């Protein structure tokens, strides 16, 4: 395994690091390997087994190489039936953790990420076994000064079903790299991401979905509402191998720009090597619809209330297809509260 200090630092010409260079999300300086503490992970519903971390396949990605070296423990969760809530608390200068989920039945896990740490590293891995269904929700409510580096590696086996919903509200700079492999035939993956950009928040989500076997399905929805001077980046890489015939894959990236200084980037890439497939992606970017604003304001809402309602409708829409009721409701409730605080005051 490459050690971090021997690894080459990626340049901005690399697609993954084009908009958020590694130097901007490293806790100190890129040629340093600082001491990183452990995130606190607690759950009332679920037993968490903690062990010394074994080395994890990092695929030469600099963020994974770094996390592999600074994280010392692995927290293994084996969720049971129903929903389990897991609190991830970040305190101190720099903290990180590796959490592994092993799904063997129908289960849901809701992660609540919060705290004041300056730098947070979170590596989520998981295996969704044959015929298992796993729903995972993650709400990022870190403090407005935090930097978050998130890397995910998920594997879905034959007839497995995996859905992942992310609500990104907190932190100053976020770099998420979420990779899912559909390694078993007839496996399904759905991913939903809602981003609210405010202040000078910089939120970069890179999502890779790799179809390796026939009859696999995937769907990705990324909705970002960008206010103030925030910057949202959404990059997708959908790969369909030549073996993965009869695949159905779709990706949609939508950006709602709420202020003159907000920026958004959308790069939904598609690499298709099989011919018996339905693969599509779409990206759209637009301001608030003036007709909708006019309608709401003519019904007595203030400009702020009308804006909040439309933004809420736009972001809540990201989660309507989440199958797990408890995850969908938890995401939507938290989003509504957040927007009322931010947009109406």
């Amino acid at each position: 395994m490459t050690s971090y200090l021997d690894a080459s630092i990626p340049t901005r010409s690399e697609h993954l690091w084009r908009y958020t260079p590694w130097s901007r999300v490293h806790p100190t300086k890129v040629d340093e390997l600082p001491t990183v503490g452990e995130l606190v992970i607690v759950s009332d519903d679920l037993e968490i087994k903690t062990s010394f971390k074994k080395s994890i396949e990092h695929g030469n990605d600099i963020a994974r190489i770094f996390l592999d070296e600074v994280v010392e423990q692995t927290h293994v969760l084996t969720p049971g039936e129903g929903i389990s809530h897991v609190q991830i608390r970040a305190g101190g200068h720099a903290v990180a953790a590796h959490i592994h989920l092993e799904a063997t039945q129908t289960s849901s896990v809701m992660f609540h990420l919060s705290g004041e740490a300056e730098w947070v590293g979170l590596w989520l891995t998981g295996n969704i076994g044959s015929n298992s269904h796993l729903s995972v929700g993650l709400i990022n409510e870190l403090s407005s000064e935090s930097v978050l580096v998130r890397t995910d590696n998920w594997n879905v086996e034959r007839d497995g079903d995996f859905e992942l919903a992310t609500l990104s509200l907190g932190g100053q700079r976020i770099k998420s790299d979420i990779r899912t492999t559909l390694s078993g035939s007839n496996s399904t993956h759905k991913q939903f991401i809602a981003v609210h950009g405010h202040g000078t928040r910089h939120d970069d989500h890179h999502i890779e979905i790799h179809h390796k076997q026939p009859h696999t399905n995937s769907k990705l929805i990324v909705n970002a509402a960008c206010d103030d001077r925030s910057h949202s980046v959404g990059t997708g890489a959908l790969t369909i191998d030549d073996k993965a015939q009869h695949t159905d894959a779709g990706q949609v990236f939508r950006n709602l720009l709420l202020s003159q200084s907000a920026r958004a980037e959308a790069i939904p890439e598609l690499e298709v090597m099989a011919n018996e497939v339905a693969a599509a992606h779409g990206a759209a970017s637009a301001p608030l619809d003036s007709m909708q604003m006019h309608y709401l304001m003519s019904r007595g809402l203030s400009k702020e209330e009308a804006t909040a309602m439309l933004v809420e409708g736009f972001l809540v829409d990201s989660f309507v297809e989440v199958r797990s009721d408890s995850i969908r409701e938890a995401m939507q409730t938290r989003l509504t509260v957040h927007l009322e605080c931010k947009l109406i005051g």
Partner: protein
Amino acid sequence: MMTQDAQEAVGDYRYGFHDPESSTIRFDKGLSEQVVRDISELKNEPEWMTDIRIKAYNHFIEREMPTWGNCNSLEGINFDNITYFLRSSDKTEKNWDDVPEDIKRTFDRLGIPEAEQKWLGGVTAQYESEAVYHSIREDLEEQGVIFLDMDSGLKEYPELVKKYFGTVVPHSDNKFSALNTAVWSGGSFIYVPKGVHVEMPVQAYFRINAKNMGQFERTLIIADEGSSLHYVEGCTAPTYSTDSLHSAVVELIAMEGAKIRYSTVQNWSANVYNLVTKRGVAHKNATVEWVDGNIGSKLTMKYPSVLLKGEGAHAEIISVAYAGKGQHQDAGAKVHHLAPNTTSNILSKSISKGGGRSSYRGMLQVTPKADGCRSKVVCDALMLDEDSRSDTYPTMEIGNSTADLEHEASVSKISGDQLFYLMSRGHSEEEAMGLIVNGFFEPFTRELPMEYAVELNRLLELEMEGSIG
């Protein structure tokens, strides 16, 4: 006779014939500062152009290979094994009968003078490095339209060339634009005066005949205020087992209210690297349209782009690509919205067959000052067999909240229902597939002059032959 290797490399390529090479001047292979100086001296160019060439050569030497596109495939280019200048005729002829017999025979087989008589406003035929034949209709000349090959343009209108040369694609843009600026030869120079509408399309035809030849034509088109022009370009090369390089630079300048449409059907043989930088600038209320067809070549990396610089400017890009065995069509489009209320439409269609790879690589950028922009990008891909590959790499960079942008892409195979319907009406499976492919490309072919559209459909039919079973 073509060698066995060459035949395998290129398959059934209609324009694969080549004539015995009868050049009057041929440079040794390889590139050096002296080669660049010699090209400039041979053409008796002004000092400022020699200086630009030398500057560009130095930049080419220092510059890394591009990182945008299928860059791994570029490693196959051996810059030392390419002839950078080859003169086939001592001068550019105005009368078709005066063109040297062997060259005339080539273009006769391609149908150039015939097309000119029928429907062209003017024509330039370039063979190897330089134009061998050139003509323009008298009425256009009377209206002040300048249509020359680039070398003559530099001789006759040096001030105009100096003013605009390299303003849209500077030599420092990328490694291949630097190479082109250093060794350019031939291409078209067009100036359309204020308010003049050139009703008939003008055409250039580029032909590489020699082995290991590099063709580096340079085209500069300026449409002055309120004018309009349709320029059509066709390209072919014979089939050899060793590779040739085509690295052109095309600069379009559409002044206020002007309109330029630039149509290309590229049908290089499958041993040609086609690495072209094409860019247009649209000033206030101007329109730049690229209608771009890529059928041939080994590797094409071509992303026609438009800088929407003036308020109300519009860009329209229609691009089709056909990738057969051993081909990679890395085509796309770039539009930069730099001014308010600018609009753009991009339509990309591609077909992959026999293990070919087609990619759409696009860039849509909206800068903070560009209020009220609108853009729509649609990419459709058809995969004809399981060995082929189709990729989409779109990029949208939005720095203005009032922008309204859409991108959609889909990859699919030929619909079984459509095939069944056509076959139930008596067509063979091959004919039915051919009809569906022609229909798939229809948004492109309907924008071409009739003769080109017919030619393209015939080419596609040829490519589709043997696609069943």
